[in-house]
Each structure stands twice: as structure tokens, then as C-alpha cells.
């Protein structure tokens, strides 16, 4: 501002130069476009411009006037340049804002997504179950779905004529004798437990194994029965394992899967390949154990079968049951999915309606 004051002071006695000054400033002030700015620059600072005119007038001026006129010219040139520069920047900024405002987008329009697929609910449930056990130091093993009677029944302490066999209706591929079961018969495995035997045969303790896979039962298909289903089998064989380890492991598992507020209980049960055996219930998450239609009033939901591996099973694979003990457990992935999401009809899981698959 010092320049402006000095200019006003110098032009105070020169009316002619003061009027040039005023015209120059109003020209700068009146600029509205970049074109105006260019025109103003020519009009004021061009070869025939007003300011150029001031410098030209120096030669004909009185000697003592010469420095004054020169200084006025310099100050004016400086102030005009600054003024035009400021004008130009303001305009550019206003133009950008105006153009952005003009091209405003509707931010509520959907984004441009790439299609993402959906993993089947059953696979998601299996992944979740398996990952809990991987975290507990387990590894994954799988086995054949078309299996020998030996692995499916006999080596699991379920010899021919054992009453437990009548519990399961089995799909057969090959029978030595149509009336009598035989350990060479070929069948579709009725559970994932044969993997236990195969893994124990092939490797030695310590074993901490989780084995998800398909199993088959010859059930007429309806809302609660499927002829093919997914089981997750787990087992551990090591020195010194007992029922307490089984309980601790499954309690952690159930509460990680269903929430840490869930309660877990163990009911003694019977399975041919474990002894002692138990079924595991989780407190109903629909009613928090008060009793409701989901848990049929009991407050509990059955979720797993388990037990200490029967010494006979260990003997079958050549382990000394006095040296190694183990536990095993198994659950149906469908049941977990159904309980968790309130699915009433199993068949939606194999219908694969895309409208169903996309929900998960």
C-alpha cells in the first residue's frame, strides 16, 4: 500500500497524471473475463498504451519533473500488473467452482461394481468351523467318499450285525452277499469317521485332525432329511488326553461358533467308535434357554456327537491304548446352518436358487 500512497502523493500536483491513474485503475477494476484482462493490458501497458504514453512524455518534460513522471510511471505499471494478476487468479478460481457446480453428480446413484460371487452357505459354515480348529492347532485331512465297509464300520468297532448298523441306511456300490454285510463291501460312507482310521493307519501321534466332507445316507429326502450331507469330523490322539480335554476343546469351539455367552452341556450317549460317548448341547440362542419352538421347549440344541476313541479302534490301527488316548467328535454342517439362520427346509441348500445363494 505504500506504493499507492506514494503514487497519490506524487499525482497530487499533476492533475493530468491523476486522471490517467484513475482511468487505469477503473479499467483494471472493470475486467470481467480473461479477454478483458488482455485488452486492459494492451490499453494500459501496450506500445500505444496509456502508461507507455507517460514514459514517452518524459523526454519533453521539465528536468525537475522527469524523475517524478518516471516514478509515477513505474508505480502505475507495478500496480496495474498486480491488479491484473489478482483479477486473473480470482476469475480462474471462480470459473473452476462454476464448472464443478455445473457438473455436479448424484452421489446417491449406485457405484459401478464388479460382480462378486457368493460362496455356498454350507462352505461358509464349514470354513468357519474348520478355521476355529486350525486355530487350536489342528490340520485338515480328507478321505474317500466311496469307502470300504471295513473303514466305515468294522474298524470303527461296528462289526457285522452290530445293532448300530441298523441305525443307518447305507447306499451300496458292491456287496459280496446281498443279505450279509461284509468288510469288503463297497459303500458310500455314512459319516466322515473313516478318515480317523485312515489317518491313524498312515501316520502316528500326536494327531490333531479336522476332516470336513460329504457323507451319504439312504434317507427319503424331505425337509429334514437329505441323502447327502456335509459332516465335519475332528479327532485328537496323543499321550494323556482325557474327557476333560474333549470338554475343554468343544466348549471353546461351541462358544466361538455360537457366541461366548452360550452355555454348553455334555449328555452321555452311545456311539460304537467312542467310549465314553456324549452328545453336546448348546443353550438355545433363540430363547436363551427359556424354552421355545426352536429348541422344542428344552432350552438346549443338540449340536455335536463326541467321545473318547474306543480302545478297540486304537487297537485296530496298531496303537497301544494304554500309551495313547484320543477323542473324536462330529457334527453336521447343515444343522449348524439351519440353526443359525432359521432355515426350516434342508432342500434349499441343494436347490442352489441364486436368490438363496446371494443372501450369504
Amino acid at each position: 500500500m505504500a506504493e499507492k500512497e506514494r503514487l497519490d502523493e506524487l499525482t497530487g500536483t499533476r492533475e493530468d497524471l491523476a486522471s490517467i491513474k484513475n482511468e487505469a485503475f477503473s479499467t483494471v477494476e472493470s475486467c470481467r473475463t480473461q479477454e478483458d484482462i488482455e485488452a486492459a493490458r494492451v490499453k494500459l501497458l501496450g506500445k500505444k498504451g496509456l502508461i507507455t504514453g507517460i514514459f514517452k512524455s518524459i523526454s519533453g518534460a521539465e528536468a525537475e519533473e522527469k524523475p517524478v513522471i518516471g516514478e509515477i510511471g513505474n508505480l502505475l505499471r507495478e500496480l496495474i500488473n498486480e491488479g491484473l494478476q489478482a483479477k486473473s487468479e480470482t476469475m480462474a478460481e471462480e470459473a473452476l467452482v462454476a464448472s464443478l457446480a455445473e457438473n455436479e453428480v448424484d452421489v446417491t446413484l449406485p457405484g459401478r461394481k464388479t460382480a462378486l460371487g457368493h460362496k455356498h452357505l454350507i462352505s461358509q459354515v464349514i470354513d468357519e468351523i474348520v478355521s476355529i480348529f486350525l486355530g487350536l492347532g489342528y490340520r485338515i485331512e480328507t478321505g474317500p467318499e466311496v469307502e470300504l465297509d471295513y473303514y466305515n464300520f468294522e474298524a470303527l468297532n461296528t462289526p457285522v450285525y452290530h445293532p448300530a448298523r441298523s441305525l443307518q441306511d447305507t447306499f451300496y456300490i458292491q456287496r459280496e452277499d446281498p443279505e450279509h454285510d461284509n468288510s469288503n463291501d463297497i459303500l458310500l460312507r455314512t459319516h466322515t469317521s473313516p478318515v480317523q482310521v485312515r489317518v491313524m493307519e498312515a501316520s502316528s501321534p500326536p494327531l490333531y485332525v479336522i476332516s470336513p466332507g460329504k457323507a451319504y445316507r439312504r434317507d427319503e429326502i424331505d425337509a429334514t432329511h437329505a441323502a447327502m450331507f456335509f459332516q465335519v469330523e475332528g479327532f485328537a490322539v496323543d499321550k494323556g488326553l482325557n474327557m476333560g480335554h474333549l470338554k475343554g476343546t468343544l466348549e471353546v469351539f461351541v462358544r466361538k461358533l455360537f457366541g461366548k455367552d452360550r452355555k454348553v452341556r455334555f449328555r452321555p450317549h452311545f456311539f460304537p467308535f467312542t467310549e465314553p460317548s456324549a452328545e453336546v448341547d448348546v443353550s438355545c440362542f433363540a430363547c436363551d434357554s427359556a424354552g421355545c419352538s426352536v429348541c422344542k421347549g428344552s432350552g438346549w440344541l443338540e449340536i455335536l456327537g463326541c467321545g473318547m476313541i474306543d480302545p478297540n479302534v486304537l487297537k485296530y490301527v496298531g496303537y497301544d491304548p494304554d500309551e495313547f488316548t484320543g477323542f473324536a467328535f462330529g457334527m453336521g454342517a447343515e444343522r449348524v446352518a439351519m440353526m443359525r439362520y432359521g432355515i426350516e427346509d434342508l432342500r434349499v441348500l441343494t436347490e442352489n436358487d441364486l436368490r438363496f445363494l446371494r443372501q450369504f
Partner: protein
Amino acid sequence: MRVSLEWLSDYVEYSMPPGKLADLLSLSGTAVDRVIEMGAETTGVVVGEVLEVKDHPNADKLKIAVVYDGFENHEIVCGAPNLFVGMKSAFARVGASFSGLSGGKLKGAKIRGIASDGMLCSGAELGINDDASGILELGEGTPPGTNLSDIAPTRDVIFDLEITPNRPDCMSMLGVAREVAALTGARLVPPSYECNESGSPAGDLAKVIIEDLEGCPRYSARVMTGIEIGPSPLWMQRRLVAAGLRPINNVVDITNYVLIELGQPLHAFDLDLLAENTIVVRKADFGEQITTLDGVERQLDDKTLVIADRKRPVALAGIMGGEDSEVSGDSTRILIESAHFDPTSIYLTSKRLGIRSESSSRFERGSDPEAAPHGAARAARLMNQLAGGTISRGEIDVYPRRTVPVTIDLRPSRANEILGTRMTTDEMAGILEGLEIAVEKGEKLRTTVPSFRWDLEREIDLIEEIGRIYGLDKIEEAIPVGGGLNAGLTRKQKLIGSIDDTLLAQGLSEVVVYSFMNESDLDLLRIPSYNPMRRALPVINPLTETGGVMRTTLLPGMLNTALRNTNRGNRDIAIFERGRVFLSNDPGELPEEIEVVGILLAGVRGLKNWSVETNENYDFFDLKGIMENISDVLGVSVSYKPEDRAYLAPGRSAGMFIDGDMVGVIGQLHPEIAGSYGLDGEYYFGEFMTGPLVEASRENTYKKVGRFPNVKVDIALIVEETLPASTVLEKLTDLGAELLVSARLFDVYQGNQIPGGKKSLAFALEFGSADGTLTDEQAHGELERIIKEMENGLGAELRGRINL
């Protein structure tokens, strides 16, 4: 097993609410599936006799009955189908209260214009049983006017128990009572087997011969004379109904009652219908036949154990009686059979003949040989009390080879090791003794198992008993250390996971399909006889809805999935499945199980979006791109060559090869095949084995990246139309060696600007070197060389080049 607590309390003096008892049983291994509250206090309901039945003037299905209640006649309206003149039923007077009224009192009413002065009730309405199909039919001997609550208590709680296969002893009131006694310490009160005998010795009246001691180790019998057949008392009927059985007459009801009470199946023969009053237990002769009580005539063979008289089979041993020795209204002399049969023989016969009965379901799991005489005596005692019979003196008991009681040694330390407990030897002995197991204390516990617990054979069986009675809830929890180095996913498992992830990321959803297909699918797909896909494994006993063979390809399952979806309006299909196919081997050998991934695409590609003008349909190159992304993720080089498949469109199918081995096929589904599955439009199907891909996968390697930009050039080459693009690309890559860092085909052109029979392929090339010293001149020199070689080697002609 349905257990009436009213009945159970005859045998064990427990005192606790039903809910608590149910928990105790459930937590000790006898799961209470359901607790059924039966009935309420009944008042104003008496035995009524139907004197007359008239038509209702205004309703076809209703009748008017005149009922005598011991004091007077009442006219009532009744719609029961089993109403008849002379019938005794349960009559509720106006003002009565019973279970079905839920707290209210019965009012007089007009039904279709006719006044009804009371009502006849069904068992369900009274809470006696769950039969609502008609009104309660009472025995002839019950006098009208008798209060119903005097002859049948209607208030009861029923436990529906799940009995595990190892505990046949719990399939009886006495067995459950033993459990309750062991759990609560309450006193067990077994029923009385005392017989008030008189008259001729049983041995003079009947004779029993066992020819097959393997099949029938013991046969006990009692002989009754002077029996009067009639209905059993209502309390017994109610108990039988509560147990799920249908009352018939006093003799049959008593055999059923004792079956439920002791778990010992019985059979009553009309002694006068047995030739020479003799029972012979033997294998049937081939060609013999019997008509069983269910009215079916059955051909027998020499594997079937029968009860015969001197002439013919009169019962299928342990399974079902025969019609022509059945107790009827005229029977007076009866032989009560109470035997012990070999479980396996019963199991096999029942399975072979397809009959299951209350009797066979107990024998096949194993019965208590020592209980056989008790069963006969108990039935005889009840027939004496309730059917007017005389018990002949003495019992018949053929039992030549006595069963030796089982002894088991138990190491208390072992029990604690298995259970994770710190129980004392005394605690363990106490639990076992509560289960009627005799214990001799020493360093080991020497135990003797009661005959009804034949499931206890080994030390581990006793440990289980100790654990379940001690209470699993009391066992302290611990977490094992886990598998250490062996824990976690293998590299292969992770790679399989990344195949799934890559598919999902490209918009394909996973489906889960049954592992079966129909043999006819192979014909529909036109699979030639020499193709391995023909090696389908048949299932002996398939379900019709799932198909009769194991699948050898995922295609039929995926097509059926697509069809179900298109029928439901989901026309855009992008699905995959990872699962096994099964190829048969020689007989006796397990099949090959191969994990494959199947992919099916149809309809609009990707997501429909407002910002895209036209949504394009999936085509061959979408499918191939998906496959290429998978091999890129796995770091596997897969090449594609034309490969014909009868189910794929000619000229639009390719094989996937790794090092010359085919690992999969992709292509457009043949439109005729699509049509034969009910689909129209273009479908793209690919199927590959995961094993070889994962096997060929290599860890990524590091290549230094130069600090300067690569030199980029686009070139277009004119080649023969028939020359596969992959050949040109491979040649380019080979020639490019070190300096050509990437070559990407970005355009294919045929048209006026190039000669007929030729095509133009445009490639984006990038040259570079790790040390960053490659100059423009070097790169272009290299390009010149490559182009020259392409011209010489493939007859290619440079159409143009653009330096970028």
C-alpha cells in the same frame, strides 16, 4: 420308549418333580426327548352303556344315542364312528370336568337342533390316551355308573425316552427304574413273581424241546388253565396305551404289559391248538410256511428259527406268533412262552422277512437270559389275578447251558486317566454297586456284572458307567497343546482355497449338488463308450430322485441347477462347483475319486448397471479368461488347443493342457444338448481337475524391476486366417527372450483392409531390462529382429507399428 411316571412309580420310590427327573436321566445317558403332560383331574365322568342308537334328523354324520349311566338314561348327540348298541364307554354328565375342557365344566347343548344331555368321550378328550378317532371303548365287565377316575387315573406325565442301542435293558419299566434308583439312591421295588400254583404239574400238560440251542439258549414256560378271555382292567389298558400299545384282551394285554414292565417278550399259545401239547424250537424246513398274526402268509427257509409244535411252525421265534395257535375268545388253556433267543439270529430273520415287532426289537439287541422265568411267572401271576386262570404247578425251564456271569477288572487309575477326574476307589465302587454291579476291592476292582447288563464286557464299559453316573458336568476342562508343526493348512490346501477365491472374485457363485447322476445323462451328453466318463459307478440301492450312478462329470448337475434357476426367473447364470467325480475301477477296488471344478456361464455378463449402455452376454472368452485368471493366481502355465467333445459346440471347445497333459475342457455347450436339458440360449461350460493345477503351481519368483520406463510398441501382423493366435503369441514370446517383458494381443481384424484368407493380429509389446540400461535403439533393434523372424518363420507380414 414311552414311560408313564404313574406306572414307573410302582418300581422305584423316588420323590422329585418330573422336570428334575428328566434332567437327571438326560444327563446320565437316557435322553428324555419329550415330556408329555397327560390329563387333568376327571370328575363327573362314569361308565355309560349305549342302549339305543338313532339317526340324527338334521345331520348324516351324527347319531343320537341313549346312554344309561347307572341311574338314568340320557339322550346325547354323538358323531363317533365306533358307536354301537351295547357298547360301554366313558359318559360325561352335564357339569363334568375333564382334561379336554381345560378347566371348564360340561354344559348341556343343542347340536343341529337336538338337545344333548352330556357326551361320550374319546380317550384323548379324557387324557387317558391320545386316540381321538372315536369314543373310548371299555370292557364289557365294567358296571355302568362306575367313576372313571376309580378305574383309570387320568393324570400322568409321560417321558419319551431315547434308548441307545447298547441299553436294551432300559426298554422296560424295571430297567428305567433301575437307572432312577442308581441316580437318586431311591429304593428299587421289583414286581412280584410269586405264583399261587395249583392243579396238575405243568410238565404233565405241556412239553418243551429245544433242538437249536444256538438260536434259543433258554425256554421258560408256564401253563395256565381255566382262563376266561375278556377285556383287561382299565388301569392296565391305560398304562398300555400310555406306552403306545393297543389293548386287545386280558391275556394278550398281560403279555404286552409284562413285556413293557420287565423288557422280557412273551408269547401266549392256546395250548389246545398245539399238536401233542408240545413246543419244539428248531430251524424251519425249507418250504414250510406260516401265517403270522399280521395276516401275511410267509414262506420259510432253513435259516429261520421257529417255534413249532409236533406238526408245524406256530410262531416265528422271538418275532411274531402264528394265526392258528393264537389265543381266541374260546381259549381256556394257555402256554406262556418266555424265552431267550440269540440276538443275531433274530436281527437277521427280522431283516430278511421285513417284520419288526416290540418283541424282535428287544431280542435283537439282547435280552437277559436270567429274566426268562420271571417273565413267565409274572404273566402267570397277573393272569391268575385278572383272567381267572389257574397256575399249573411248577415251571417249565429248558436251560441246559447256563450263562456264566461276566467279571471285569477295573484299574481305578485308568478310570481317572480316561475321565480326567480324581475319584477315589471307594467313590468308583459306590457308583458301580448302585448299578447292581458286584465289586471286590483290591488294587484293581474285580467286578461281576448283572445278567441284565450284557453290554458291559470291558474295562472301558465300566469307566463309561462311572463317568455318566458321576456326572460329565463335574469333569474339569482343559485344552490340549495341539499339533505343533503339523498344524494348519498345507500349501496345496491354500491353493485350492485360492481357486475358490478367484472364482468368487470373478462373480461366480458356488453351488452344492448331489454326487449322483443318471446313467441316461451319459447318453444325453453323447459320451462315447471309450470315454472314461462312461466308467460310472452304479449304486445298488439308489433313490429315484437323485439318480442311479455316481457322477463322472459335474455337467448334468450344473445343467439341472441352471434349469431350476431359469424356471424360477434367474436367467443370468454364473456358477461353479468344486467336488469329486468317481471313475470305476476293477470290481472289488475303490473307484478313482477326482476333485474337479465345474463352471457354467449363461446370460448377461457381470452386473447390470445404469452406467453401461448395453449389457453383453457371456461368451467363450469370458470362460477362458476366468480359467486364465485361475492359472495366473496359481502361477501355472496352461495352454489351450482345439478339442472336440460331443456335448460341446464344434469349433468352440478347447482342451486345457499342462506340459502336454490335458487337465480340463472348456467350450460352448452344444445347443442340442442344452435343448435336451430344457435350456435355450448359449451356455458355456468348463471343467478341470484341481490336482494337476495345484501340483504344477510354483512359488512366485522375484525379478528386479528397472528404474526407467519400458519401451512400448504396438505392432500389427498379418497372418494366415487358420494360424492359431496362440502360435503367433508363443513365437513372439520365444523370440523376445529376455528383453521382451510382455506381449499382449489386443486386436483381431479381418476385412477390406487386408487380403482374403488372412487376419491381422495386433500386439502391445513392452521391452525393458532389469538394470534399466535398455535404450530405445536397442529395443527397436530387437523388434526389427523379432519381426524379421516372424516373417521368416510364420509367413507373417508387418501391417503397421506405432511407437508409444
